[in-house]
């Protein structure tokens, strides 16, 4: 109604909307160019790539790239990533939410100081810990084991997990907790029967953000995994790219395989990404 104020008022409404969408769709395509390149490369054979480059339609679609990449080693990398992620995420969330609960609802007088202490972990560059961790893992015989890597991931996950869970626990009304206390409910029961169920959306958000972060982690895997059969996906892919530097087709297929689980999680749980990040800034 107050259209005359708008600069584009001379354009009729409909064509303005159309123009808006055209610009947006072009920007989208531009933004996704790397992904499109990846998909096109994964579908063509190496000869086609060498002649026509990455950004052209495949002469013939070569699905066998995927099975070849899978058999060349991606299978191992994939399952290693699955193992590490599926142990790290649930264990981490139990520890983090217990800690966050203590910091928000248990009238804990050190809460602020402990929370600040935990936040330091969010900012510390990994390089600051590598040498002592190498010595420690060596002493414990945990170098080159998925167990050792998982333990490190759990430790490094604590700050972000506590931050997110604390953000959500703070929104749980104190009255509910107090009422349960007065009814004689123990703190452990309050935690897992009241607070945790109420924070379920936060738990889901954290599972997803944490799962993606674990799936993508590179530097700790690079330092603490030595043998090829134990590598996780990001590490395995970079190694794959240096060993088979000319087999772009298989490398692209391998990258695509590693990305598919992330894409699925992203498509199905998008809103939890937003919610989780929101919890982290609250």
């Amino acid at each position, binding site marked *: 109604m107050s259209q005359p104020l708008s600069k584009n008022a001379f354009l009729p409404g409909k064509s303005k909307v159309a123009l808006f969408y055209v610009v*947006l769709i072009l920007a989208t395509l531009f*933004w996704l160019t*790397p*992904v499109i*390149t*990846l998909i096109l*490369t994964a579908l063509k054979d190496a000869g086609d790539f*060498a002649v026509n*480059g*990455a*950004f052209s339609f495949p002469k013939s679609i070569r699905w066998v790239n995927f099975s070849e990449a899978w058999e060349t080693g991606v299978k191992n990398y994939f399952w290693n990533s699955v193992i590490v992620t599926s142990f790290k995420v649930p264990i981490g969330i139990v520890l*983090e939410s*217990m*800690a966050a609960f*203590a910091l928000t609802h*248990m*009238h*804990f*007088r050190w809460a602020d100081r402990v*929370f*600040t*202490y935990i*936040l*330091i972990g*969010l*900012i510390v*560059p*990994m*390089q*600051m*810990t*590598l*040498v*002592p961790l*190498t010595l420690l893992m060596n002493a414990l015989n945990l170098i080159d084991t998925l167990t050792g890597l998982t*333990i490190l991931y*759990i*430790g*490094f996950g*604590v*700050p972000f997990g*506590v931050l997110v869970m604390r953000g959500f626990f703070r929104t749980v009304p*104190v009255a509910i907790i*107090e009422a349960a206390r*007065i009814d004689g409910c123990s703190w452990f029961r309050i935690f897992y029967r009241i607070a945790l169920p109420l924070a379920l959306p936060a738990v889901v958000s954290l599972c997803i953000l944490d799962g993606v972060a674990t799936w*993508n*982690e*590179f*530097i700790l895997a690079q330092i603490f995994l030595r043998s090829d059969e134990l590598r996780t996906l*990001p590490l395995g*892919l970079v190694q794959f*790219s240096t060993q088979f530097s000319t087999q*772009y087709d298989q490398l*692209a297929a391998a*990258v695509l395989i590693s*990305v598919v689980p992330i894409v699925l999680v*992203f498509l199905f749980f998008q809103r939890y*990404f*937003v919610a989780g990040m929101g919890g982290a*800034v609250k």
Partner: protein
Amino acid sequence: MASEKTATLAPRTSKSAKASDDSLRFLPWLFLAPALVIYSVVVVYPMVYSAYLSLFRWDGVSPTKVYVGLENYGILLTQNDVFWIALKNNAIWLVAALLLPTSVGLGLAILLNSKFRGSHIFRSVFYFPSVLSLAVVGLIWTWIYHPDLGLLNQVLSAAGLKAFTHNWLSDPNIALYPVIIAATWNAVGLPMLLYLAGLQTIPEELLEAAKVEGAGPIRRFLYITFPMLRETTLVVLAITAINALKAYDIIYAMTNGGPANRTQLLSTWMYFLTYNYNQVGLGTAIAVVLFSLTLIFAIPYIRFMTRKT
């Protein structure tokens, strides 16, 4: 006896201050213990020990470490050229990270904030690169920059700009910038998400009122939207800066510090010194420098996160 103090430190409580019996004093520690123990062992103790190790000359293997005081820092500052290259690269990276992903993220957030048909799909598209691992992002962009077969050079040639084609990642003078572009592609999602959340908190009536008063879109942005996003902007800048200083994987995947160490960052150079050249003292000293740089941005951020508690 502790009831007064408990009440002041936990203002939300009322009656339960009475219930703060002895069990309450150690029970929170019990809830915290598993997380605190593993976090302290894996993150905090190694940090402190790294700072200590930076005062020694040590190859990482031999049983004796030689205490040298601050000599490692002196060596870095005076004799280690790559340290200065890395420091300069970190500075360039930091400036780029504070400008590019933040402003693109803000622009996208404003564009996609209004609810129109498909706005959710567009948000997902622009956020998508952020869920990819930096190793994968690096690999994908390496193809785009491929000298013969890469999309970038192909497009330039096709557009008649063959003179501008480059061997992007092998030219020591420019190799850092293509990597920064690739990192930006990945880094835009988070500022966009945070700004979208921030925009939700601006009351619609305020903008409507300004519109009625005759303020155009630019003035509305400059005088209402942007000032009201101040807090979000602070968080965005802090997080982007901290993340920028953590950059490592993408360098490793795209240039491995080369050509001729011209794309080393402090993070990658620390790795080279420690694990390839067994200079543990120098490596940990670099880590300490990197951490100190991070603190510049992190201290205000942590202050902000622990406010009003």
